[in-house]
């Protein structure tokens, strides 16, 4: 959505601004110098200045623009319409009733937004006016930042941040590099290295810089922070020289220069065209399932509102058919009214009824829900259990809109590396031609140096293998992008190695590389540094070997390998390549492939991450060819990535296999426990990883995603090679479905699949084959359906060899499947961003691979284990809270407005309001708003510890169970019932009787008649007390704040009423409420009837609750009862198992097997239960039972037949 919008905007701006922006590349004159005439005809372009405007409004457009934005919201718009109707026509309530709250909300919001915008203006100004140093005519001049233009050469000093996007020309460091931290851009605090243009890196004084005569051609700005292509043309002599520019040359605005004294750089993107500014677009809004049902209810209520108004309008004219009713002598119309046309009169009446009943749409609900979400998200951030001491991070909430969605998750898609695992790599072993080398890391607590620590497992290699061994170690020392840091206080780096006196660190964007280089060090080959494009290695004999680094063919996730081309000191040229086995083996022409492959597979099964290493000797001619290929691709402005990939493909071939490495990535703490809990909570966990199948599978076993008795179904390339995809799919689906007796699975299957223990493994290639739309054969078009069918029946799915985009594809596929399950994606790296954005709830781990995932997520947590509390506790709570909030809001407004509707039948459909204006206005705003807001913030129906201990409670709320239509209808009917009790209760007390205060002749104050306002006040008093008590009955967690707010708001109502009726308010033109409330309270029958009506209103709900609790308790209620029984110590002493299933006796008495799937006895799901029943009977052997289900298990056996006489819990697998 956001993306579409931005493209649209660019399109529009292109059309509006003019033709020059049509050019896809821009030409920048360094130092504003024109190129020598006749070189090439460049189109002169105009660029914006470097002014940053993050503010939304200006002084002039604030009011119209802000108003427009506010009234785009449904609630405000609705209020506005009602307000306008009240202004235009003669309506029962004064415009103040809706105008005042509207004005209040609008003003407060406008002030808040205005203030925020003012702050932004201030911040913009300070940024725009901050001084920058610009080189002009060989001198450094200070300029305001906003005056910076494209093409200016800028001097940036250490710890300054870059004023715009710059191309690095030269730096104070000899090698032309500089270090940068991009913490404010993407949150990564590690230092990154950027490179100056080779030809200008020597120019490091103002004078020299000023003498550069060059132009830069580059693409027009685009928001991707990590992509940039461009070309720099030098006009040294007559012939211009072109050099490629890439993202390694581009310094982004917002980043800060570190560890470098100064740099010179030229501005290429300024102001709002910088990548940082382009990235300030808001993400598309995700909406929760609760919000969707809320909107559905709203539509229902809108229909009710309209039909009420129509019914009353029609009734009015039917009733008025008798002219004496229409206009009795005591209530004559004015002349103008008489002349009005009947249609206009009817329409006005309709609108007046709409206004009268408009409060049934709980507009304040939106405000309350928003406040609840906003304030509620603080409890997530405040949670001490989700604080990680090691990282010093706490949970972060980026969107508070999805708090309740956390309680609805059905599918969890998790990344493996860094999410399930620590992403803390440790070198385990390497094998060269089948000979295994294991470093003895620690010996008596000391790191053993040198060759002594090398341990050869296999027989020692022959002389022939010697060469391979040497090459292998050098390959690993050279083929990487690791940098060496020598400073001691570099933040964000954990890998410290002590080397002699000075401390140096290896840093890299990939922890695998660091592990490998460190592993090599332990095996005696130490990578020292990269100096003057020579890599230095300290070999086992303590000699320094130097290799000239010629080219780096960088890693990407599509190729899954990287290479370097080096020249050894002896002048020989090598290409070293390292990558995933699947990426290397097809390109290998010789070497001991079989041995290495065997070892790789062995390691993968152990759960180790493996890489293969190969090399290719290059002749001088071959090298020239390579150079040509590369420079051609690098200089391309268009499709550079594609051309580079093609070039790499051509270069990385004819490899000779050297060996393989194995690195261990340990599982994160409590990862297995978390996954088990998620499973028990009824969620399906999918692991999506780019890793190879065996490694991933091993991790899955370790993290208890798969159990020993999980039947693994494979859908991999290996299988599809043997059989056609079609057959494999049908085979698998048959296997899976056989278990269910061919029964078609219904919509609840997502939930009830808990005892099927199937695990599916699928790889990326097969997946894309499954998802590929097949045109030729319409029958096979439903592969997708079959695949989904299989997945639905598997409790765990492992997808390996996935490209980042495929991850999002999978999430999308599941999201769109016919049950529309709620999905959650969790990951830590940039490759997880797409799936995090795609899923209903995206969770980022603040991991080692930067902050990109955390930044793009809805919630960020420090560790995977925190997911448990996030979902099982916070998600559960917020779902319970908000569903009560929504239902209660509709309920209390039905109670509020329905009596007013009924009153119309007794006042000649004249739109006479039942309640006073003040009551109408304040009912939702102050009398009944705070208790429910507080409830929705702190209610805890079950103890937090129990929720964590017993994940299956999560199933109680699955599938939006508290906002289903039956429950909604129950609440609405309850509201209607209460309204009827209140209205007719008061009616019969008033009707034709002398409803009076104390009739004794004691004072003059006797025998007063009560008028219509007393009638309304009586109903209203009962109403306020009833709805508040109803909430009190639903509250299970009474802290002092609850007491304060609930009793406080009742007291407030009474005090307000006393005050409102106690004074002749000078600003009112009517005094109809004067002393009404007091007179009412001075009457005994009024007290008696208030008590009676409150009791009568609450009675059925209480009875329903008690009976339901006894007859069909949910698991939640069982636990509540038990908790009560054990006086809150349940979590410590009692096994919860017995609570899940009712006893056998209970079963028989109820005469059905409904409680069979014990963790989720849902009253409304007889259908599902039947299905469950059948399944249980047919295939008991397939089920695995978690300890919590034992009791249910036992019941099943007794029920099943007399053969298993009284089989107990011990039958569980």
């Amino acid at each position, binding site marked *: 959505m956001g993306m579409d919008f931005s493209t649209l905007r660019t399109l529009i701006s292109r059309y509006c601004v003019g033709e020059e922006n049509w050019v896809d590349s821009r030409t920048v004159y360094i130092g504003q110098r024109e190129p020598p005439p006749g070189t090439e005809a460049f189109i002169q372009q105009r660029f914006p200045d470097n002014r940053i405007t993050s503010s939304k409004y200006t002084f002039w457009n604030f009011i119209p623009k802000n108003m427009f934005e506010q009234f785009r919201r449904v609630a405000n718009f609705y209020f506005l319409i009602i307000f306008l109707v009240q202004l235009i026509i003669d309506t029962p309530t004064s415009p103040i009733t809706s105008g005042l709250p509207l004005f209040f909300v609008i003003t407060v919001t406008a002030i808040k937004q205005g203030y925020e915008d003012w702050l932004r203006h201030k911040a913009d100004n300070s940024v725009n006016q901050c001084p920058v140093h610009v080189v002009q005519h060989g001198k450094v001049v200070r300029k305001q930042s906003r005056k910076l233009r494209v093409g200016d050469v800028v001097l940036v000093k250490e710890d300054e941040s870059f004023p715009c996007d710059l191309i690095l020309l030269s730096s104070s460091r000899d090698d032309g590099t500089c270090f940068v931290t991009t913490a404010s851009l993407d949150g990564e605090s590690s230092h990154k290295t950027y490179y100056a243009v080779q030809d200008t890196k020597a120019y490091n004084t103002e004078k020299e810089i000023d003498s550069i005569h060059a132009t830069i051609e580059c693409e027009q700005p685009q928001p991707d922070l990590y992509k940039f292509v461009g070309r720099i043309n030098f006009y040294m002599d007559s012939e211009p020289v072109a050099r490629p520019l890439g993202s390694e040359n581009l310094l982004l605005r917002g980043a800060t220069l570190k560890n470098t004294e100064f740099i010179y750089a030229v501005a290429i993107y300024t102001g709002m065209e910088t990548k940082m500014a382009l990235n300030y677009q808001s993400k598309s809004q995700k909406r929760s399932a609760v919000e969707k049902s809320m909107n559905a209810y709203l539509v229902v209520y809108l229909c009710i509102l309209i039909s009420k108004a129509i019914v009353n309008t029609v009734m009015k004219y039917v009733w008025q058919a008798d002219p004496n009713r229409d206009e009795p002598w005591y209530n004559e119309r004015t002349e103008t009214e008489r002349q009005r046309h009947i249609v206009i009169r009817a329409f006005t009446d309709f609108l007046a009824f709409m206004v009268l009943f408009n409060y049934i749409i709980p507009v304040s609900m939106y405000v309350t829900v928003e406040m609840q979400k906003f304030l509620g998200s603080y409890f997530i951030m405040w949670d001490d259990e989700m*604080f990680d001491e090691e990282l010093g991070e706490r949970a972060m909430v980026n969107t508070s809109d999805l708090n309740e969605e956390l309680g609805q998750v059905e599918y969890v898609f998790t990344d493996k590396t860094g999410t399930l695992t620590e992403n803390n790599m440790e070198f385990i072993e390497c094998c060269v031609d089948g000979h295994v080398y294991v470093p003895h890391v620690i010996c008596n607590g000391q790191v053993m140096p040198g060759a002594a620590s090398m341990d050869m497992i296999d027989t020692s290699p022959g002389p022939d293998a010697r060469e391979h061994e040497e090459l292998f170690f050098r390959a690993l020392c050279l083929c990487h992008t690791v940098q060496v840091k020598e400073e001691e206080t570099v933040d964000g780096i954990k890998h410290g190695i002590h080397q002699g006196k000075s401390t140096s660190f290896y840093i890299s964007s990939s922890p695998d590389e660091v592990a490998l280089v460190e592993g090599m060090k332990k095996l005696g080959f130490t990578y020292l540094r990269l100096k003057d494009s020579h890599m230095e290695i300290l070999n086992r004999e303590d000699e320094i070997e130097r290799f000239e680094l010629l080219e780096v063919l960088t890693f990407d996730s599509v190729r899954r390998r990287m290479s370097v081309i080096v020249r050894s000191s002896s002048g020989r040229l090598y290409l070293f390549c390292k990558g995933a086995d699947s990426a290397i083996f097809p390109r290998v022409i010789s070497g001991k492939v079989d041995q290495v492959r065997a070892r790789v597979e062995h390691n993968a099964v152990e759960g180790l991450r493996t890489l293969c290493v190969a090399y290719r000797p290059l002749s001088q001619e071959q090298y020239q060819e390579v150079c040509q290929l590369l420079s051609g691709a690098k200089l391309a402005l268009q499709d550079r990535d594609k051309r580079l990939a093609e070039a790499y493909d051509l270069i990385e071939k004819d490899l000779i296999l050297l060996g393989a490495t194995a690195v261990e990535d340990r599982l994160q703490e409590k990862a297995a426990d978390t996954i088990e809990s998620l499973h028990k909570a009824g969620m399906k966990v999918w692991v999506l990883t780019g890793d190879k199948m065996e490694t991933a599978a091993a991790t899955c076993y370790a993290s208890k995603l798969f159990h020993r008795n999980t039947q693994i179904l494979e859908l991999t390339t290996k299988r599809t090679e043997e059989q056609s995809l079609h057959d494999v799919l049908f085979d698998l689906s048959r296997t899976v479905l056989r278990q269910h007796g061919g029964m078609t699975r219904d919509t609840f299957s997502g939930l009830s699949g808990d005892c099927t223990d199937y695990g599916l493994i699928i790889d990326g290639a097969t997946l894309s084959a499954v998802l590929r739309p097949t045109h030729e054969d319409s029958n096979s078009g439903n592969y997708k359906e079959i695949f989904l069918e299989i997945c639905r029946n598997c409790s765990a799915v492992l997808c390996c060899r996935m490209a980042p985009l495929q991850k999002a594809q999978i999430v999308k596929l599941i999201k769109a499947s016919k049950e529309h399950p709620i999905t959650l994606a969790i990951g830590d790296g940039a490759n997880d961003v797409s799936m995090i954005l795609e899923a209903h709830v995206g969770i980022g781990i603040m991991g080692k691979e930067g902050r990109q995932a955390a930044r793009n997520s809805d919630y960020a947590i420090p560790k995977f284990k925190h997911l448990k509390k996030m979902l099982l506790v916070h998600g559960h709570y917020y779902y319970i809270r908000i569903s009560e909030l929504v239902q209660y809001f509709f309920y209390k407004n039905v109670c509020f407005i329905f009596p007013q509707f009924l009153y119309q039948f007794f006042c000649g459909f004249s739109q006479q309001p039942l309640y006073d204006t003040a009551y109408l206005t304040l009912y939702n705003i102050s009398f009944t708003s705070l208790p429910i807001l507080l409830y929705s913030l702190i209610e805890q129906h079950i103890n937090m510890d129990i929720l964590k201990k017993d994940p299956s409670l999560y199933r109680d709320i699955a599938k939006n169970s508290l906002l289903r239509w039956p429950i909604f209808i129950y609440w609405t009917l309850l509201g209607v019932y209460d309204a009827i009790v209140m209205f007719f209760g008061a009616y019969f007390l008033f009707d034709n009787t002398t409803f009076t205060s104390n009739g004794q002749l004691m004072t003059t104050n006797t025998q007063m008649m009560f008028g*219509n306002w007393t009638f309304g006040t009586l109903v209203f008093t009962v109403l306020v007390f009833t709805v508040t008590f109803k909430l009190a009955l639903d509250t299970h967690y009474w802290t002092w704040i609850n007491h304060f707010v609930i009793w406080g708001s009742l007291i407030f109502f009474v005090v307000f009423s006393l005050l409102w009726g106690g004074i002749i308010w000078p600003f009112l033109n009517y005094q109809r409420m004067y002393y009404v409330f007091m007179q009412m309270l001075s009457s005994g029958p009024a007290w008696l009837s208030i008590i009676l009506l409150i009791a009568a209103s609450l009675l059925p709900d209480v009875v329903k609750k008690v009976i339901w609790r006894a007859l069909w308790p949910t698991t939640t209620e069982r636990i509540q009862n038990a908790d009560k029984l054990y006086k809150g110590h349940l979590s410590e002493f009692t096994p919860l198992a017995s609570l899940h299933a009712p006893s056998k006796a209970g079963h028989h008495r109820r005469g059905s097997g409904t409680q069979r799937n014990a963790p989720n006895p849902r009253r409304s799901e007889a259908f599902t239960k039947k299905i469950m029943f059948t399944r249980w009977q047919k295939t008991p052997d397939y089920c695995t039972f978690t300890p919590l289900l034992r009791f249910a298990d036992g019941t099943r056996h007794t029920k099943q037949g007399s053969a298993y006489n009284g089989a107990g819990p011990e039958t569980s697998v």
Partner: protein
Amino acid sequence: MVKKEQEIANRPDNTAFTQQRLPAWQPMLSAGIVIPGFVLIGLAFIGIGVALFVTSRSIQVMELDYTGVEQTSPCFRCSDPNVKNCVCLLDFSIDSLFKGPVFFYYGLTNYFQNYRRYGVSKDDDQLSGNLDSFISPSDTCAPYEFDSNNKPIVPCGSVANSMFNDTFKLYQIISGAKNQVPFDGKGIAWWTDYNVKYRNPSVTPLRDAFNGTVKPLFWPRPAYELDPSDPNNNGFINQDFLVWMRRAALPDFRKLYRRITEGDYTQGLPAGNYSLEIAYNYPVLSFDGRKKVVLSNVSWMGGKNEFLGIAYLVIGSLCIVMSIVMLIVYAKFKFPEEE
């Protein structure tokens, strides 16, 4: 070191509130609490209900319709709208002592004092004695804002205009002689209406305040002459006017007319024959309404109202029944679970 401090700075506050672990009372609507509760509430309600019902039973009410729809009715003659200044006599008898204090009401049916347009058709400012509003009444009073000569009507508006203007005199017939039952018309309106909300303009004599205004079209006499017998009962603080101005909630209503508390009738109306003299002015037949007078006495709980007592009895017994039902459910399904 810096790192450590950062860590502490970022650490969430560990308070009971932020960790959602405030001490709390966790009540449960379990059968064990609800059943005894229901029994207690039920018993209490039944008790109150019985008391209310018995009291209500002891209240005597006598209702006399005098609309004159039937030809036999003594007021039939008066129901013709063309007959002016009609007086009719309604005879009735009381069998046993009608215990005092006796309240005398008039009642109207099918009369919608709660029409919205009717209800707003008055000027509170005027009624609180503001002379400015005498000259220019509020627009809400239309069509009773100005008369045909464009003079302001005081008090303006439909409510005041349609004030009930039948008058009643009650006689006890003692051996053929008519003995007038004294009526007490003081304090029949709300104290606050009489003393605070409604005020006459502070002009003496009162009639001067009404200079340049006209009386409501329907009224026989201007506001300052509503009660010729008592100069303090005139203008906007006339008790009958105040009673009328407090709009009834429902279309069938009674309003207090007088109390019978004085003279020989302090103890109530003794058994015997009575005659009610009605000055029949108020037209109701046009909208199919009825007029009646009601004699009633009151108890500690107000006038006769059997509904409240019955409702209490019903709800009370429902509570008991429900508690029995719950007990059955509880006994049958709850206990086995705790095996």
